[in-house]
């Protein structure tokens, strides 16, 4: 995965949310951490083309996201996981998962169903395929959402705090799945508060503070940083 951000700024109303962010990243897994309100989720929204930067330029895998209308072709090549799952409540789990295949990638329903079912089987979710999201647990919902995002074999998976709406047991289920994806070598940009997994799967960690990059480095360097803001943050999340 290749990320190239130059002097990216973003405002909401009068408030500056991201200020002059420049990132270069050319490995597999980049994790964004930092205090609440530091702009992690906003940065992710920019990276998945749901928002346009106020100034600066963004390039992901050679695709420029700075100008122009909705970059449909870029969106077809990525997968996005949201904090609140965002499954479609009127469709069954299976229908949710095959929707991107049948409606965007032009794969017929039989083949899409087959692919979805083999994926569901692998992650032990096959018994739940016909349930509507309402009758799934939080952990099952998020795992279904991940299935929906990875079934199109995306180049990059973007995850926006995928476990922060879940209790510890369900968090475990979802993190296990994410580690499995890491083993499969999937490119990921991961916003999280789960420091242990951040340490384990990231090639680099990017620490954001008040809309600016405080540090971008290998996990060990970030965790052992002597920067007072980072040490204070680590103390709090490890409490």
């Amino acid at each position, binding site marked *: 995965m290749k990320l190239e951000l130059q002097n990216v700024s973003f405002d909401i109303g009068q408030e500056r949310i991201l200020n002059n962010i420049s990132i270069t990243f050319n490995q597999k897994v980049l994790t964004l951490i930092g205090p609440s309100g530091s702009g992690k989720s906003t940065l992710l929204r920019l990276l998945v083309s*749901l928002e346009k930067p106020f100034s600066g330029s963004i390039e992901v895998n050679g695709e420029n996201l700075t100008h122009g209308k909705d970059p*449909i072709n870029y969106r*077809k090549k*990525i997968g996005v996981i949201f904090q*609140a799952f*965002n*499954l479609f409540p*009127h469709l069954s789990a299976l229908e949710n998962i095959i929707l991107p295949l049948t409606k*965007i990638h032009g794969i017929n329903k039989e083949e899409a169903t087959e692919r979805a079912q083999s994926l569901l089987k692998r992650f032990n979710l096959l018994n739940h395929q016909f349930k*509507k999201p309402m009758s799934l647990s939080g952990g099952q919902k998020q795992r279904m959402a991940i299935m929906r995002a990875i079934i199109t074999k995306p180049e990059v998976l973007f995850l926006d705090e995928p476990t922060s709406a879940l209790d510890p047991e369900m968090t475990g289920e979802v993190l296990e799945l994410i580690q499995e994806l890491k083993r499969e070598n999937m490119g990921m940009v991961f916003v999280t508060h789960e420091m242990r997994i951040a340490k384990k799967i990231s090639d680099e960690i990017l620490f954001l503070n008040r809309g600016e990059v405080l540090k971008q480095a290998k996990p060990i360097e970030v965790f052992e940083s002597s920067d007072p803001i980072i040490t204070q943050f680590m103390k709090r999340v490890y409490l």
Partner: protein
Amino acid sequence: MKKTFYFLLIFSFFIGISFWSFQEIGYEWNWVSIYEYRTKFLEGFKTTIWISISALILSVFIALVNALLLGSQSSFLNALGTFYVELVRGTPLLVQLLLIFYVFAQSFGINNRYLVGIYSLALFSGAYVSEIFRAGLESIPKAQWDAARVMGLTDGTILRLIILPQAFRVVLPPLAGQFISLIKDSSLLSVIAISELTLNAQEVNSYTYSTLESYIPLAILYLLLTLPLSQVIKVLEKKMKYET
């Protein structure tokens, strides 16, 4: 099952009270002369049905167009949509009917009172229906749009596959209420001399001087239209439930 039983129990109680009340005031029924005019009721009933159905369908179209106006980027179209909703919702249907029929339609040389009646009723109901549609669309969280957009779906497809099916379920109950109102509001068309159910009942009353005997069948006939409509919508609602 239990609910049906209670419903019948309450219904019988209501009938009982009614009979007792009429007995108390010593009302003398005169059903015989009313029965002579049964075809008048039937004709009016038929007219009410087809006028209501036409106005109902038309009002949905008007509402869709107006929902587009309200949601459009142009502030002129926005203002137009808002003007329509506020004007129609804020004034009595009676006044609208009289003005549309005796002033606007006449000045444009439109004399078909049935046509004018149907359009007036649809215009009136359309304002409410468009607000119901708008509320329904807005009730779907923005996150649903986000999730669908990042997959690479176009806005039109998102609307068709994701948003409208969910919004449809939300708008059903208020829509049912609005359609029932429309059927009853069609009774006001009597003021522009459309011989629908209410006008015909009024006429029977003036021939026979049997007021209640003319109007009680009127109530029952309206119920015959509105109750099945409620039932149909209830069944639809159940079908649309998300639980498996």
